[in-house]
């Protein structure tokens, strides 16, 4: 039984279609990536999953069941924008939100202290949110979303506005949640995060799901057409090789675009006749490239 499944979900705002028939399933202990440019319909989809807005048609199922108020307690939500009381103490509002989701005050308090320790900021317990930096507010927001051990967590741009150290910290906690059995619906603009975290993805473009499925399978669909060649000295005559469509010089060596994988071998052979090769790799397409390709093609 999938923790969360969407089936042909539509949403219209007036004459504009916000989400045009999206379907996907998130298994237990899985992080599902929802990608798309600004205004592609990611947040609308998430809000429908949260029950904040109702879909015009289609079904959303939670562990096989339809939406109900009782489900609220098993959901965690990390909104894109800060959603905290600026003038209320961290402890007060986190305990409040945890209690609203059915936790006892005592359990919530113990959990909050554990999370604050985990993030290395136990001194924030009695501070007001407005006194904290943006990155630290995001940590508090994160705690608010997960303090009640939700079965399903919805994270909208979870890592925006964080420095690299904190991104790593939150990323490792997200992985822990996943390993603890939570299902996570995750949206971001940062493709490297998706590659690291998500098993399956949907790319939304202008309200339409344009690419969907297992990340590895998706990557296989796209041809490997980029070669990285690192050498000690210069290599000449690369452009003249058959199948090579472009050559870019970098400090470490060369980056070549090829028409198909068969063009790889002559490149390596040519380079080895001229100098030492320290690295040769026919690269998998990055998600970034796939994204730009998919979305770019649809721009027409």
């Amino acid at each position, binding site marked *: 039984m999938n923790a969360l499944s969407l089936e042909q979900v539509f949403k219209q705002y007036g004459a504009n279609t916000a989400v045009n028939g999206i379907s996907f399933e998130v298994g237990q202990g899985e992080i599902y990536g929802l990608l798309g440019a600004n205004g592609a319909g990611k947040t609308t989809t998430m*809000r429908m999953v949260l029950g904040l807005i109702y879909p015009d048609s289609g079904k959303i199922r939670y562990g096989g069941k339809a939406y109900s108020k009782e489900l*609220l307690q098993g959901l965690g*939500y990390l909104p894109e924008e800060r959603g905290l009381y600026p003038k209320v103490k961290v402890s007060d509002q986190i305990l409040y939100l945890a209690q609203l989701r059915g936790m006892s005050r005592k359990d919530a308090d113990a959990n909050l202290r554990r999370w604050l320790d985990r993030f290395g900021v136990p001194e924030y317990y009695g501070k007001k949110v407005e006194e904290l930096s943006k990155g630290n507010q995001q940590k508090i927001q994160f705690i608010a*979303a997960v303090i009640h051990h939700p079965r399903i967590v919805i994270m909208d741009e979870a890592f925006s506005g964080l420095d690299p150290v904190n991104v790593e910290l939150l990323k490792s906690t997200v992985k822990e949640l996943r390993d603890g059995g939570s299902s996570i619906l995750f949206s971001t603009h940062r493709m490297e995060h998706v590659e690291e975290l998500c098993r399956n993805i949907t790319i939304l473009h202008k309200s339409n799901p344009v690419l969907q499925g297992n990340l590895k399978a998706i990557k296989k669909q796209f041809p490997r057409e980029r070669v990285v060649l690192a050498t000690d000295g210069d290599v000449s005559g690369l452009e003249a090789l058959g199948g090579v469509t472009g050559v870019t010089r970098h400090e470490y060596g060369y980056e070549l675009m090829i028409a198909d994988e068969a063009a790889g071998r002559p490149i390596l052979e040519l380079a080895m006749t001229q100098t030492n090769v320290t690295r040769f790799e026919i690269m998998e397409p990055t998600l970034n490239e796939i994204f730009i390709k998919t979305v770019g093609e649809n721009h027409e």
Partner: protein
Amino acid sequence: MNNGFWTVVGFTAKNKLRGKAFLVTTIIIAVIMSIGINLPYIISQFSGEGKPTAVGYLDSAADKAQSQLFTSTRIVSLLDAYYEAQEKPELKFVPIADAGSADANEQALKQAVSDDLVDGYIGFAPDPESGFPAVTYKSESLMETKVSQSLSTALQAVKMEAVIDSGGISDELKAVLTKPIKLDTVQISTGEGAGSIGNGKSSEQQGMDMATVYVIIFMLFMAIMISGQMIASEITAEKSSRVMEILITSVAPLKAMFGKILGMFLVVLAQLAAYIVVIVVNMTLPQNADTLSGYGISLDLIDPALLVYAILFFLTGFFLFATLFAAVGSIVSRTEDLGQAVLPITMLSLAGFYICIFSGLNSPGSMLIKVSSFIPFFSPYAMVVRLGLSDPPLWQVWLSIAILLASILACGWLSAKIYRAGVLMYGKKPSMKELFKAMRAYR
């Protein structure tokens, strides 16, 4: 599943009660109230009401020699006796020596005023027609009504006493003659009314009813305005800080809204309780109780039935307006826009308040007040006025309460729908059409 509701109530109330701004405001208002109640006493301490006003008169030797009934010196000595018999003499008389000529006398008297020996002086001129000299009181003030009224009463009494004395009337008759006539106005009830009137109230009790009604509708008005604004601005703040999105994914919107309203109600109740304690304590302080009872104000005179009805209308009135304020708060996205958005509700509350203050207190039986006491947004004010100052039939009172309860349900239902739709609408203030459409989306 009532958990969520009470959690919201607790959080709302606790946060507000803890806030510095709230504490400071409450203390400031309590201090102002204490000063207000103590003011009559404080004024009586400072204005030298205990000290008699000094009035000068010409101590003329020539006048003394005359043997008429009313010479100036005889009148003054009678006045002296009259004022000395008082518990707190209002006036005292200071002789100014005769300087010889009329001009010099006038000069001497004026000098006495400018030297602050006396506050003013009296002069006597023969008035053969009335048989009593014409009296003038001269002072630097334009209209010394207090002194002149006192003088006039005193002179009348003095004249009468002197005449009676010379006429040889018995003391018994004299007592009958000088005793003031007693006239009491008592309000009666002609039907089975629910008002506090009808049990034969004295004019003091009526005056106290008037004051109580005034205080009650004023407090209701203040409570509605202040708490309504607080409810609306808290909801707007939750919306603009986007806590709302987390909030209504945790708890049903209806619970969130009514939890907020009830939480704020507890805060208002606590605040009002504090004010009432301040009022009662201050009014029962010995020095104030004396001074205030001098003005006919005493807590014993308040009718308990009126208080019970007042509390009933206070509760219904509060919740009726609170739901509306909550709905408005949920429509607006930014606190800056809130003032304009709540204006219609403010006007509604203000209208009810002013109808009662300007029309109700003077003529509680007027048609305007009668009609208003059945209109939901005016009735909390108007019915309290009718109950306190006239005698509405019991069925009318309960009809008014029933109408109020029905409108609370209707407004609560409507507000909950607006709230549910409004909390997720960001950006500019939505038009009626947009709002209606959004409301229909959430059944």
